[in-house]
């Protein structure tokens, strides 16, 4: 006799709601009723918290007024009279940016609401549907992009050719946007570099080769156990001490064997590193289109090859077909476009290097310091993640006849990744926060701008609030990004 699902549910009585809300239980006085006590305790706590908050803020406002300071965000509209040596400024055509004192307030309120909702969602991490979280992240990202969309200011660049500095006599808001751009630039570059270096060193920690293993170990121990500040100071002061003055700059070699090259592919000196910069011409659009086309064709062929493999069981050999095709399409596009890029070489003019892409010493020092420091932590995470994969898995994979790279790619890494990603996200958040240390290597990031703005205007509080909002947004975005990746890589429980 078989019992179907139908039978079972039919035989069971329907569940009855027994826990209907009742505020009164017979026999228990209200002051002994745990449900009422809980509500009372929370009300008391809330009243206490709000009261303390009110008293503190009231006292703060009173004291600020006494010392002629205020919480007025209009201070963002004041002129910012300090030259910023690097970064990008918003086009001068957008004059509304100089008048956003009210808007700044609105933006901060929206940031606050988003922040509160994100914190609340993080608090309800295990109960929230994915859609809401992703939606929040998207709104956050679009909002930030919408506010801080910039276009390079050609006028400022012209000015820079004489001063090698972007001189701002415009509003604090513009300076902040430049600072935010600089922060995001160093964070984005470091994110990529520290992950690559960290994984490399982490695999090195597990190498069978004693020398490689000990080098990786020493790297990790040194960079993990010394403060980042000391590392930054050391790198920055060493670079400025050892690199020559602009007049004695180090140029790239002018000939390699029989090849004669322009001797300014790169130029190093104590002010910065300068690289030749490709400037796109009008025909460069053809190259961009061909790259997109190549990507699409590559994706299509890969799909076809994989389904071929599934159908026939023969090896797909994806890359042997996809790579030449993609290279071919891009090459044809390039040939069609003629010479799509002209190269701007840096050159010594007077006391300075002009032209090309410039990376200041401050940026290099911050980038290197952050990369090494974070990579050391990531390496340990990667090592722990790989070691947590049971050795039986590897043995089983070898017994199946998988090659060494297949064992790593198909068996070890997918399992290790699930353990690696959550702590990796913490490291990214830490790195984003650590980027505020740019001020000690004279890198003009947001924190430095806030400091200068505070010195210029004497109004600490609005800038402090702006700074907090920015870094909170950065941290939460980074952690949300990791959570998203984390969810995508976890095993789907059935």
């Amino acid at each position, binding site marked *: 006799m078989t019992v179907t699902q139908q039978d079972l549910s039919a035989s069971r009585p329907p569940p009855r709601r027994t826990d209907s809300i009742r505020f009164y239980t017979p026999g228990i006085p209200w002051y002994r009723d745990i449900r009422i006590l809980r509500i009372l305790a*929370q009300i008391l*706590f809330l009243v206490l918290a709000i009261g303390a908050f009110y008293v503190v803020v009231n006292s703060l406002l009173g004291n600020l007024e006494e*010392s002629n300071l205020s919480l007025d965000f209009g201070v963002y509209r004041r002129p910012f009279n300090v030259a910023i040596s690097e970064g990008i400024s918003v086009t001068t055509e957008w004059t509304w940016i100089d008048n956003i004192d009210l808007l700044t307030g609105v933006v901060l309120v929206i940031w606050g609401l988003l922040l509160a909702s994100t914190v609340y969602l993080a608090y309800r991490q295990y109960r929230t549907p994915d859609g809401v979280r992703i939606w929040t992240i998207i709104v956050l990202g679009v909002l930030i992009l919408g506010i801080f969309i910039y276009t390079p200011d050609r006028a400022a660049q012209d000015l820079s050719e004489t001063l090698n500095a972007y001189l701002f006599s415009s509003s604090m808001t513009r300076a902040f946007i430049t600072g935010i751009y600089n922060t995001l630039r160093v964070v984005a570059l470091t994110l990529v570099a520290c992950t690559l270096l960290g994984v490399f060193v982490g695999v090195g920690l597990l190498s069978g080769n004693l020398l490689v293993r000990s080098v990786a170990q020493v790297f990790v121990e040194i960079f993990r*156990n010394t403060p980042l500040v000391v590392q930054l100071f050391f790198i920055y002061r060493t670079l400025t001490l050892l690199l020559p003055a602009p007049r004695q700059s180090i140029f790239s070699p002018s000939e390699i064997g029989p090849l004669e090259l322009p001797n300014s592919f790169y130029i190093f000196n104590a002010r910065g590193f300068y690289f030749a910069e490709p400037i796109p011409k009008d025909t460069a659009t053809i190259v961009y289109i061909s790259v997109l086309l190549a990507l699409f064709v590559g994706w299509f062929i890969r799909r076809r090859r994989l389904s071929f493999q599934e159908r026939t069981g023969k090896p797909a050999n994806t890359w042997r077909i996809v790579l030449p095709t993609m290279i071919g399409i891009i090459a044809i596009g390039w040939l069609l476009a003629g010479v799509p890029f002209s190269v701007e070489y840096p050159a010594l003019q007077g006391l300075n290097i002009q032209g090309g892409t410039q990376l200041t010493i401050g940026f290099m020092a911050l980038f290197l310091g952050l990369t090494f420091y974070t990579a050391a932590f990531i390496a340990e995470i990667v090592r722990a993640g790989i070691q947590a994969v049971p050795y039986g898995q590897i043995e089983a994979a070898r017994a199946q006849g998988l090659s060494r790279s297949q064992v790593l790619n198909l068996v070890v890494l997918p399992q290790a990744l699930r353990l690696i990603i959550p702590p990796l996200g913490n490291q990214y958040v830490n790195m984003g926060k650590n980027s505020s240390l740019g001020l000690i290597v004279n890198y003009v990031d947001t924190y430095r701008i806030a400091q200068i703005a505070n010195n210029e205007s004497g109004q600490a509080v609005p800038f402090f609030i702006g700074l907090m909002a920015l870094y909170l947004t950065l941290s939460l975005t980074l952690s949300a990004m990791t959570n998203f990746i984390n969810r995508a890589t976890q095993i789907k429980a059935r």
Partner: protein
Amino acid sequence: MTERSRKTQEVYVAPAEPIAPRRPPITEVGVIHWMRENLFSSWTDTIITLITGVLIGYLLWSALSWALLQAQWEIVFLNLRPLGVGNAFPSSEVWRVEVSAFILIFLALMSVAVWGMIRSSIVSTLAIIAVAMIIIPPLTEPVPEPAIFVYTDADYENRQMNFLAEAGQDVGFTIDPLTSVDEFQLDTISGYIENNNQQANTSFDAYSQASTEITFQQTRDPEQYDLSLSVQVWNADGAVIYESPFTEGTRENTDYMWTAPATGWYTLTIVRDDETSTTGAAWLKVDNVEVFRSTVPAQRARDEQFGPQPDHDCRNCGTSTNRTDMRFEGKRTIPQWFSLQLTPFILEVRQFFFYGLIVGAAGYILGKLLLRTNFSTSDFVQNTERQALNFGLVFFIAYIALQIATLVYPQPVWDEIRLFILIAFGISIVVYALAQFLKPGTAGASRGVVLLWLLSIPVIMTIITGFPVDANTTETLPLPEVRSQNFGGVLLTIVLAATAIGASFPIGVMLALGRQSSLPVVSLLCTIFIEVVRGVPLITLLFMGRLILPFFGFGLGDVDLLVRIAVMMTFFTAAYMAEVVRGGLQTIPKGQLEASYALGLNDFWTTTLIVLPQALRAVIPAIMGQAVSLFKDTSLVFIVGLFEILGTMNQILGDSQTGYTAFPREGYLYIGAVYFVISYIMADVSRRLERTGSGAIRRDTI
């Protein structure tokens, strides 16, 4: 076929004697096997080994040759005191910090003795360092400091130089006409750098000066030389007490000898006869004059002994050259490294090191002895313990009551009574701790050690900060007050780290419990606090502590900057600590809670007696990791103007007077090494705790 072959098959019989075991192939034993396995296991491995080996060799070689032959470690070993306690710490009170350090070393080694064994590798390392410290200084020969050269020529103004001489000291002067390019002179002075008081940095480099002068010489005809020079020595009042005859254009070296009549400052002046001197250049070489160290304490001591340097109004004189410091900056040899850098360093730290060694050994031995004493059945011990605890409680309550009474109704006489009660309380706690030691086994001893650590906090605080001096009375107290704004260097680092770790722990536990609470409001507020503090960089909070906290009112503006910064660091660490503790809370199996409720414990006692002890024990390694992280983060406080060890080093590097601006690498390497050693030790302790499993819940025993 097969039948036949089977018949003709030979039969092998095992030999009577056992076959002698063959030696394994040479590639499978010893060093060769180890190298094959670890370095050359495959051909790719071999290539990697070779490339890495060459790279490491090159890096090590260049790093070592820089560290031994070029680096200037004077910036470290001549500044150990500022780096230890800060520039502003009164130098007469430094002994108090040293005593506190010895107390800490004593307690640390006592704890090691009670809770574990000291590793033989550490003992042998310390022994090697101790032996090296005894042996090396007498073996190194001092590098003779070179004679001082002062350059002059027909176009220069007259040159002047201050120097110190003791009574009866012979000082030799040699006027050396620069009539030919003399490589010898370059060699003699090359590598020594003259640090001039007037000139800001190392630009007045004797070597570069000499090389410019000598290049300059090459452009002029060395045959033409007619300088007529004379050497004058002035005393501190500006009177000429010695004057040599003019050289009248002689092309030979002219030597003079002068004996100082009394101890004190003298001024050397080169006087040129302007009427007869038209062309040429000359060095004045001064022998047997002391070269001064330019550290601030050394200058202060010198000024106290001999008075300030004379500053004469000399007609027709150039900038007066005050000789303060000579540093060897050129290429060194290894023996020169020993005598110029290592020996002075050893002499600076030797006394402290050996005292520390003795104190530490005493603590270790005492700890081991106490561990082995067995007064288990002694009623006396148990009675003493109980009585000490009772008295301690009474004194404590009395102290609190008096404190409240002082607030309500102040009376001057109560201050003395309070001090008396405090001392009595301290004595009863010490007695209680000693009674703990006398109990059997590890448990008693470790409780005693914990008590001693707790007791050491107020003792050390009192020793270092002292008692506030009443402005009305003129009597000198044994421990005059040292304000916290005078703290600096390692002292400040440790004060900040210890305060923040200690204070953040209870706050972190509260926050974690709040976040885990079933009351949504409490949980939400705690979560917001934790996430906001964790989401912003520490320097933002420090910025707030320095600039915004004073505006909050409640007298926060009058609070020391150190305290405000410590509070902000405490909040920051508490948020991280809360997350660590929350991790521990989540490891507690639900059965533990159910069992506890079944026994009739309420929420409070379940948390206190069942959940927290297990949760905290499980996260001891993570808490240690947080402590390491906070310890490293203390290096950020220099941004808000506190001079901990990194801030002090920045002060030293930025101070153009001392002329260390060119040595940031040495300075920051030293700071990095200090942080590395302490963090590594902490991380190592945490790793050992993790490995021995004293922290984790033992599932198999539950």
